[in-house]
């Protein structure tokens, strides 16, 4: 069985100043709801560890209650950094295996979680091919420094799953070395653990800007089907 660590504590200043990101609404529904409902239908997830920004616990609990989420939810206050948040959530996870997701990806589906859980390896991330060219640069000098073979690069998505011991170990090593990572698949891989990937979906976008909110709303409204008419 798995514990879902649902990251939900960042303050999304880029989307709506002053309001924590998870209270942003997509299609008039709190963005957090989409991930909760999708994960709630996965039988292998029997615990949801949900973090909340300081002062927002009541609002987050109310959402969980109103949407009758049946999977038991453990609430953890968000840390100052993503590392701190994940570390705090890990210590509340009751299973040996965890799934990591973020509420800012509301287009995740129950099938995405199910495919991840069904993947054979212990440490697995959803990842996506990169359909455009990226270049290594020196940003200070605004200088292109080389070439990256895009067939060997992937867009890192969430959800991801890990053996809890591997994720704990990776976080401890990064902390000891003073390194910061923006997600956990590369963190765990750099720590020396085997991490695999399965193909994600380009619908599973991360909602960080007002344009993302509009795009997510369009996709969730079935807008892409409108060309039939």
């Amino acid at each position, binding site marked *: 069985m798995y514990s879902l660590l649902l990251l939900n504590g960042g303050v999304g200043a880029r989307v709506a100043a002053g309001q924590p990101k998870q209270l942003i609404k997509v*299609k*008039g*529904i709190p963005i957090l*709801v*989409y991930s909760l*409902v999708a994960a709630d239908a996965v039988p292998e997830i029997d615990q949801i560890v949900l973090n909340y920004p300081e002062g927002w616990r009541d609002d987050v609990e109310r959402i969980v209650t*109103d*949407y*009758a989420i*049946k999977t038991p939810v453990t609430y953890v206050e968000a840390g100052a950094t993503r590392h701190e948040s994940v570390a705090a959530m890990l210590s509340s996870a009751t299973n040996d295996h965890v799934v990591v997701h973020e509420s800012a990806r509301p287009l995740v589906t129950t099938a995405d979680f199910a495919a991840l859980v069904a993947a054979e390896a212990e440490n697995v991330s959803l990842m996506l091919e990169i359909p455009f060219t990226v270049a290594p640069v020196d940003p200070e000098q605004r200088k292109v420094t080389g070439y990256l073979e895009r067939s060997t690069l992937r867009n890192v998505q969430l959800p991801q799953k890990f053996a809890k011991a591997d994720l704990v170990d990776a976080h401890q090593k990064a902390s000891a070395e003073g390194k910061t990572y923006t997600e956990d698949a590369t963190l765990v891989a750099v720590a020396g653990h085997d991490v695999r990937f399965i193909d994600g979906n380009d619908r599973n976008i991360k909602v960080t800007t007002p344009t993302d909110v509009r795009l997510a709303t369009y996709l*969730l*409204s*079935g807008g892409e089907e409108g060309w039939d008419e």
Partner: protein
Amino acid sequence: MSKTLMVTGASKGIGLETVRRFLQNDAEVTTIVLVARESEDYTQALAELEEINERGVTLAPYFADLADRGGVIRLCAEIVKAHGNVDILVNNAGYTKPVPLQQVDFADFERTIAVNLYAPFTFVQELLHHGNKFELIVNIASTAGINGRSGWLTYSASKAAVINMSEVMREELAIYGTRVVCISPGRTATALRRVLAPDEDPSTIMQPQDVAEVIEMLASPVGRFVDSANLVVRQ
């Protein structure tokens, strides 16, 4: 697959015909929850339904006045406890007392809104709060909700709200894969229609079983392709 159907206003008219059709034709429906006010019509309808219940479907009648919101809330808890998940909900119960604007008694306006709008809302919200996952919700509105009708202010307004509420429900409940369809029947030979148009010959207009047949189609596999927010059914 074993499904539970719940129909409000199940003692007569479109509600009763809907129960009858599912009872006889839909092999997947094994429990039918009927909700209506206690009446002789209801008792008689239940006896008739038991007579044609050849598949041994569980017929679970409940008595309720849908203007009593507290009662509706308690009823939801009772239904969830007794029958588990409601897969198909047909919000059919309706009330009207057609009078011109100057003669509208506000208490009656409130009753119209309570039965026609608040009750279907409360059934859906309460059942969701109990963790219910609907496959299909059918809200019965009216063509009188599309255009206001002189002399029917309270009824027209309540049904306009049902049409709009259904659109919102349809969008919001998509996260569960729930389909929400609003049906707006035109003139149908029901008891409610007799209140609205007492001089009309009911044999000349659409019959409740015609609307029930449309509801049955919506719940069938092909119903998935009828993805209309407000389905007008009229002669």
